[in-house]
């Protein structure tokens, strides 16, 4: 496997705050990689630099073989993004949103096939404003795939979704990975990182403080003599919730 994202000594300062403070890491082709950390840790700034939306003060970032600082448009051609707190323009049908973004990439795409892949085929003729939160996130992913990206960046994709929609999105991310697309995500949900990711990087105060597979990180923690009181529970509240309400999506 070779690195598809390669970051060296990346730094970004906003006034007094060193948002990103000498970050280095690599993401391997075909893996699901997560950047974890509390709010204000510098995750979004780091991701936005990789997406060509912000410029770093120093350091280099190579994404899909392109130096982000030198050719941000070139990076944008090769990646798919889903931004935090962004929406689609109003008064477009769901299918038209896909077509619209294809235009931004100067491509022609089979919008229905992309919608089918995210389970939104039957919403194609509906206005995108009318979609539920989970449907909107899936549309975001369909849109992020219009240019057949080499890396898919997802910034907190499951925030605000109900458990059914979250699980549905996990399935989708696994599907995308199976098709060979590298997935780079940020999240607050550690269970999500644990089940989805090949490797995770934990970021705090602008620095990466740990980077490995979830299993290895847990083993290392246990190796340091960590233990927590064991509750002999075979299920948790989420299992109860899903058992009672079912796994199928509720989005109408």
């Amino acid at each position, binding site marked *: 496997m070779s690195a598809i994202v390669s970051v060296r000594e990346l730094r970004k300062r906003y006034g007094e705050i060193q948002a990103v403070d000498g970050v280095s890491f690599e993401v391997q082709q075909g893996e699901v990689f997560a950047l974890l950390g509390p709010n204000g840790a510098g995750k979004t700034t780091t991701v936005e630099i990789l997406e060509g939306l912000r410029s770093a003060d120093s350091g280099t970032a190579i994404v899909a073989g392109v130096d982000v600082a030198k050719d941000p448009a070139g990076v944008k051609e090769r990646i798919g993004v889903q931004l935090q707190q*962004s929406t689609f323009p109003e*008064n477009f049908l769901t299918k038209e949103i896909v077509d619209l973004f294809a235009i931004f990439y100067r491509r022609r795409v089979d919008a229905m096939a992309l919608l089918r892949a995210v389970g939104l085929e039957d919403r194609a003729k509906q206005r995108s404003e009318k979609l539920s939160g989970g449907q909107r996130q899936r549309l975001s992913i369909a849109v992020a795939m219009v240019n057949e990206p080499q890396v898919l960046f997802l910034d907190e994709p499951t925030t605000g979704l109900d458990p059914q929609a979250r699980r549905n999105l996990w399935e989708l991310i696994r599907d995308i990975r199976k098709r060979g697309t590298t997935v780079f995500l940020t999240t607050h949900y550690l269970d999500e990182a644990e089940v989805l990711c090949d490797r995770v990087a934990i970021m705090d105060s602008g620095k990466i403080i740990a980077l490995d597979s979830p299993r290895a990180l847990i083993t290392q923690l246990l190796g340091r003599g960590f233990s927590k009181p064991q509750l002999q529970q075979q299920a948790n509240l989420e299992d109860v919730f899903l058992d009672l309400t079912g796994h199928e999506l509720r989005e109408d």
Partner: protein
Amino acid sequence: MSQILRYTGMLLRSYTRDRTALFFGFFFPLIFMGLFGILNFGATGNVNLGIDDEANNADSQRFVDAMKSVSTFKVSAGTRDDLTKRLTAGDLDIVLVIPANFRIAPVRGGADAPPTMTELTSAARPEQGVIGTAIITQIVDQISFAVTQTSPIVATKREEVAGRNLRYVDFLTPGIVGMTIMQLGIASVAFAFVVDRQRGVIRRILATPISRRNFLAAQVLERLILAVVQVLILIGVAVLAFKVVIVGSMLTLILVTIVGATVFLCIGFAVTGLVATENAAPPVTQLVTLPQMFLSGVFFSRDSVPAFLKPVADVLPLTYLNDALRSVAVNGAGLADILPQLAGLAVWIVVSFVLAFRLFRLD
């Protein structure tokens, strides 16, 4: 280029689903036109013309008869003093004094000056003054052409003008068209961009490889097309439903529309640069558009603008636009006749483009 055109096409398609925009773009100006048009039908269908025929000869009788044959005019005779009193009282719109030396004959080589008619108009009802004066001028021209036996083609065209019934709606239509162009340029840019910026729509689009230039080009092109379509529909309704007659060429009107829309789009982008939030958009845009609605002769002639505001009113962008549109629609002016207005609009394009360039930010 194909990216710009494809994006423009998508924007136009989404526009057809935007009920608010459709209402303000199409129905609102039509309601205005209907309301003002109907309200003033009876009152302004006629121009009350008082004639003091001091000459009282065969030629002056022919002239007065010509006036009486125009259905727009309600002609009454009287002495100058008497008629002036009635003008002041508001019973008359125009008083025309035919001098004693009046006759209809070619003026000989500048030997003696042509007879001079005195025309008094009422400041209270300026539209009537404008319309009446236009008709009187047409009739005088018509007679002059007939007497001097020149320019038969122009004379034929003029006959048609003088024969029709100039009404308030004819005066109003170009004003409403101008107002619509202004609203489209300023409001559609300010509201759309402020909202899209706040909701992260623009940030999402800028995460794709489309260049800012192409993105803005499509947004501008879409609105220029909308302006032309709106103007065509407005004029279409005016002609079909209100029997408005457009004297000048439609092509010239469209050209003026595009120039005017360009001015107001630039102003719209400059204004958008000053507006940070959705809530700030309405007051700021109204600050720019409302004064122009009342000072630039949308509903009433600019003669009613107070003298101290005149210097300002005269150079407002909507004033240039309305004057140009009205000259073409009502008086049949060609491009050459409206060069001063087009020059004024050109200056505004330069000024507002510089402002837009300095103030407007996409993100």
